[in-house]
């Protein structure tokens, strides 16, 4: 695992004069600006130096007459950003999907929202914006304001849908449509199926695209916390934590220790309820209603704790810039501990069930296998990566909140199939219960919040948090006013969804729901 400065040295002596400037965004995060053509070599060098590295996100920033593209590359313990500028008129840049296939969706998203065309991209079709979106209107550009986009009230003619039987020889085109009992959220996968075998998968997301990054630019930082929290209802504490961390990094504010512990507690509660939700939903997908009902009944214990702690069962609205909004009362601690021990006993039943239930294993064992190399190549994050043996966890790689003081271990399985991914999540629930109990025992006293001015000094910062589905990445740029200049969110499912295409191909149609649910897709995260 090469360390960061070794990579920087390798970059500077191989690129030499093509590097325009290097500066550090935050302690430990370096930013290297290169000429437009040289960005591909820079990315290739970083990937060669550290074989476990991967492009975490590609951010576009509108600088007036040029668009700045930032390739954030995740190495062992930090993020190295490579920047390249592209003129706005005919924005063209070379695609890096051939050296890092995982960047496929990132590039399509930037081309949708900024109008940068990536030469050599395998299928540069529209990913996020709806089909009837007017051509070359790119929402995230500064000059495009919400007012001058033709709204669509009234003309809801039934839009054309691909016909079901495709013209190619025997390939039936089954659409796992927007409204489908298996999916809580709308998204569309048109599977080209030959008999029972899936030949091709064409995902079409964007049904839940609410334009949050554009909306964040027209609201103050205080209002942005609530907006950002509602990107995904299941992992909302993580979005709030990551956004507040990034803004605190820009302002240089340090959060009191009690607030750091309270943040850790709410983040772990969020992880438990999200994992249990998924394990129950997986039961529903493979037709195992009993597991679904038991898992969700036991999950209610966690929902009661969150309701008592934050006032709402699901959307916590607990974390704010400078600390947390409510304090944990002393008399609540024993009650929470009692509920957690009850949960721990139930976990042993589920672990035994997942390991010995025959029909459940028949439906999840070696279904949707993702090897370690593919996981690294596709840049998958979180339990999906840990299920294939990639030992990666932001809580340990780059500790935030109180994770550097709390002992916990990262769980990895090597089988790489749906069963392994479900088992990773089940063990992580046990780990989270231990973390919360440790945090409750060592809760420091003192203030839980620091007063913070409304305006943020100019600067930019990167924030990373380990959401239940994986590494959540934030980039915030501020211009000294109370309104952020640019907020970039790369959610974990956005990185994982490409692996579904890879997993489903060659598999059985009846396996699609099982392997699909094991990725724990959260489409309100993906579409933002």
């Amino acid at each position: 695992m090469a360390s960061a400065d070794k990579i920087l040295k390798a970059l500077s002596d191989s690129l030499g004069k093509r590097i325009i400037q290097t500066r550090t965004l935050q302690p430990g995060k370096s930013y290297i600006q290169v000429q437009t053509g040289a960005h591909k070599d820079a990315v290739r060098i970083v990937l060669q130096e550290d074989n476990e590295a991967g492009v975490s996100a590609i951010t576009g920033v509108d600088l007036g007459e040029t668009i700045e593209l930032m390739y954030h590359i995740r190495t062992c313990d930090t993020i190295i950003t490579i920047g390249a500028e592209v003129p706005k008129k005919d924005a063209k840049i070379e695609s890096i999907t051939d050296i890092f296939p995982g960047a496929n969706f990132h590039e399509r998203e930037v081309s949708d929202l900024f109008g940068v065309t990536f030469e050599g991209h395998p299928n540069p079709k529209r990913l996020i914006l709806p089909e009837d979106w007017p051509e070359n209107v790119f929402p995230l550009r500064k000059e495009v304001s919400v007012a001058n986009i033709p709204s669509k009230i009234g003309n809801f003619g039934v839009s054309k849908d691909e016909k079901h039987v495709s013209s190619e020889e025997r390939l039936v085109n089954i659409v796992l449509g927007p409204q489908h009992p298996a999916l809580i959220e709308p998204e569309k996968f048109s599977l080209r199926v030959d008999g029972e075998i899936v030949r091709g998968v064409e995902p079409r997301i964007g049904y839940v695209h609410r334009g949050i990054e554009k909306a964040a630019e027209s609201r103050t930082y205080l209002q942005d916390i609530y907006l950002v929290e509602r990107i995904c209802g299941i992992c909302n504490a993580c979005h709030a934590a990551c956004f507040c961390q990034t803004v605190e990094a820009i302002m240089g504010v340090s959060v009191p220790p009690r607030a750091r512990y309270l943040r850790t507690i709410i983040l772990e509660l969020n992880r438990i309820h999200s994992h249990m939700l998924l394990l129950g939903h997986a039961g529903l997908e493979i037709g195992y209603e009993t597991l679904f009902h038991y898992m969700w009944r036991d999950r209610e214990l966690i929902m009661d704790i969150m309701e008592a702690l934050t006032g709402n069962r699901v959307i916590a609205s607990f974390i704010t810039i400078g600390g947390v909004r409510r304090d944990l009362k002393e008399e609540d601690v024993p009650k929470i501990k009692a509920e957690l021990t009850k949960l721990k006993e139930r976990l042993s039943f589920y672990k035994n069930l997942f390991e010995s239930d025959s029909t459940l294993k028949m439906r999840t064992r070696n279904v949707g296998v993702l090897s370690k190399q593919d996981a690294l190549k596709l840049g998958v994050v979180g339990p999906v990566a840990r299920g294939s043996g990639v030992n990666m966890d932001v809580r340990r790689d780059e500790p935030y909140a109180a994770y550097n003081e709390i002992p916990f271990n990262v769980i990895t399985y090597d089988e790489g199939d749906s069963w392994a991914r479900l088992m990773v999540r089940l063990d992580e629930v046990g780990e989270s219960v231990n973390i919360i109990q440790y945090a409750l025992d060592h809760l420091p006293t003192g203030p839980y919040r620091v007063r913070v001015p409304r305006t943020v000094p100019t600067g930019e910062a990167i924030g990373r948090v380990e959401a239940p589905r994986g590494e959540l990445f934030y980039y915030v740029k501020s211009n000294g006013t109370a309104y952020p200049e640019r907020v970039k969110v790369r959610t974990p499912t956005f990185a994982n969804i490409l692996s579904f295409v890879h997993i489903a191909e060659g598999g059985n149609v009846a396996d699609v729901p099982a392997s699909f649910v094991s990725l724990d897709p959260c489409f309100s995260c993906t579409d933002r």
Partner: protein
Amino acid sequence: MKVKREMAKLSPILREVISQVFKKPATRRYPEVKPKVPAGLRGRQIFDITLCISCGLCARDCPAKAIEMVDVEGKMRPLFHLDRCIFCYQCAESCPRNAIKSSEIFELASTNKSDLVVKPKENSVSGGSQ
């Protein structure tokens, strides 16, 4: 045969399902039995008109623009649009006189949109129109 080997270890679900039949169901009969709600629940806002100095900070800070300043007997008072409100209580935090307090009323469903608008006069200290 693979299937037979898998069946070897009996899954714990067999005993669990039978034992569940004899246990009391975990259902709370909601309409008859009102749930015990934790103290800090973020339900409907209770607005105290006497404390309000009509400064409009709550309307400015509301992320969902659900508070509208309305003229009531010459003074501007906040009017809550419950259908737009996301119950985040940023208004209670920004209010200098903390005239807005949380309550445990969460049954707010209604068949027409008009009675989701809570006028300042109505829900002052007397506990609201509910």
